[in-house]
Structure formats: C-alpha cells, structure tokens
C-alpha cells in the first residue's frame, strides 16, 4: 500500500464518508505521508464541499420557486377556476417508486452539460484502495 497511490474512487469514498473505519484509516495514513495523495484528497474534499454548496443553492432555488408558485396560486384564488388551477400549480409530481429514472432527459441530452468532461472515471466504492 505504501508504494502505490490511492485510487481516486477511494479518496472520493473517504470524503463522502462511505469507507469503513479501517479503510478510512488506511487513506488517512497514506495521505498523511504522500504529498500527491494529500493534494488529491484536498481536491476531492473541495468537490465534496462544492456539492454542499450546489445542494444548498438547489434547495434555496426550489423554496423560491415554491414561494412564487404559492403567490401565483393565491392570485388565482380570486378567480373562478381557483381550485383546479391551484391543483395544477401545486400538485407534487407522483413518485415513480423504486424503478424510477434519476434523470428527466435521455443521456444524449446531457451532452452539453457534461461536455467539459476531461477526466471522467467510474465510481466504485467497492474498488480496492490502492493500485499495486
């Protein structure tokens, strides 16, 4: 382990709190002695912190949209088609259950959002911690 560098998947699993205690200790021990892995661990941590910022912004945006929807439906309440309109605006989407899709668009439609990919790799939490 000491001669090999940590896999990026292991570093990401570490910052995502997905490693067992013993695997996390291995990551810490190696990153404590290897400058390259320490800097990769810092990068993985920055990405993890960015995910928090993204999730907070997303949640704040959704709350904002919900507030606007509520105001819009309150205005509609003055009209005749009150109930039906409010239902259309505010009804939550149905839960599709366990087999539901994660993404609205087909993979090809994601191309523009992910065109900046320069170095993608598969995430595999079960992958070994280090390459020999």
């Amino acid at each position, binding site marked *: 382990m000491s001669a090999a560098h940590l896999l990026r998947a292991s570093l990401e699993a570490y*910052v*995502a*709190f*997905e490693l*067992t*205690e013993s695997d*996390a*200790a291995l*990551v*810490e021990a190696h*990153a*404590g002695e290897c400058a390259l892995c*320490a800097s990769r*661990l*810092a*990068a*993985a*941590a*920055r*990405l*993890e*912190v*960015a*995910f*928090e*910022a*993204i*999730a*907070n*912004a*997303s*949640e704040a*945006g*959704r709350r904002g949209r919900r507030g606007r929807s509520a105001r819009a439906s309150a205005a509609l309440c003055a009209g005749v088609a009150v109930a039906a309109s409010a239902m259309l605006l505010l009804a*939550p*989407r149905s*839960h*599709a*259950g*366990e087999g*539901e*899709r*994660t*993404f*609205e*668009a087909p993979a090809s*439609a*994601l191309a*523009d*959002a*992910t065109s*900046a*990919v*320069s*170095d*993608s790799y598969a*995430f595999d*939490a079960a992958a070994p911690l280090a390459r020999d």
Partner: protein
Amino acid sequence: MTTFALARLGAPEAPAATAPECDLPARALRGDVAAWNALISRHNHRVVVALLARGVPVSRARDVAQDAWLKLIEQQRAGKLAELRLPSLAITQAIFLSIDAARRDLRERAVMSSSPADAADPRDLADERMLSDERLRVAERVLSRCTPNARRVFELAYAGDGLSHAEIAARVGLSTQRVRQIVCEVRKLLRDALAGAFA
C-alpha cells in the same frame, strides 16, 4: 467524567441516525451529553472535509475538528451559545482554529528562518468560496435534468442537516440502496460537468 464521541466514526449510517434531528440542537444547548454525541457523530466528518478542502493536512484536520467541538461545548457550558446551527457553526469554529494555528506557524517560521515560503497562508483557510457562479450555473443545468425525486435526494444528502442514506430513504419512500445509487449518479454527473475545477 463526561465522554464525547470525538473519535472517528465508522460507517455512514451512524447510530445518531435514530435521534430526532430537530430536537438535538435544543437538547445540546441544555447540556445534554447524548445530544452532543449524536450531533458530533452526524456532523464531524463534514467538519473534517471542510478543513481538508482548505488545505489542512489530514493528520491535523481530525484534531482541529475535535478542538472545534470541545470549544463549542465549552461555550455552551459557559452559557455563551445562544443557538446551534450545524454543521456550519462547527466548521466556522474549526476554520477559525486553523487560521489561528497557521498564524502561529507563520510567526514561528519567521523567527526560525527569514523565508517562510512553505507556510500555509491563513487567508487561504478563510476562503469560503468553493464554487464560482459559472460553475454553479453548470451544476444547476445538470440538476435541472434530474427527476424531482433525484434532485430532492441529492439535496437531502448534501444540504442542511446532512441526513444519512437510510434517513433520506425513509423520508422519500425509496430503499436505502436506491438512495445510495441516486446520490452516486448525481454526484458523478456533477463531477463530470465540473471536471477540472477541483483538480
């Protein structure tokens, strides 16, 4: 003697998951040790990751996080803690301690040598901005293509309280395995879209 859960916590589904999250800060503010332990179990890893993201070495991050919790507990016992917003308060406290330590390092190096080139810059530690507006817009485009449920799962995993996968599963009516899979997929999409920004 009171013992706090400051050691490394193992699996993601920590025992703290059983305690009602909304009660914990109020109970901790009243000095409830079990509530403090549950909060530390839940949030300590995010404090450590926040320190790593700011360049604090992994060997030091855990100790600094521990000191931050002890400071908060001290403040609570001294009646100086009016509210407990976590993990942000613990992260702020930990960053403050890191800045303090970095300043001490700089001073010591300045005494020892005339060229403290490799000392950490306390201003780097204080830099809260991890994501530019442009990157945030890219991320928003990615999330806008996720289903509402997938987006909600991601938010619950990363925003605010930082719920465990099991807690999210209970909240949205999916299996823990499915929640884990969704978090993984959204994370991969975001990581790919933001590639290069955090290398």
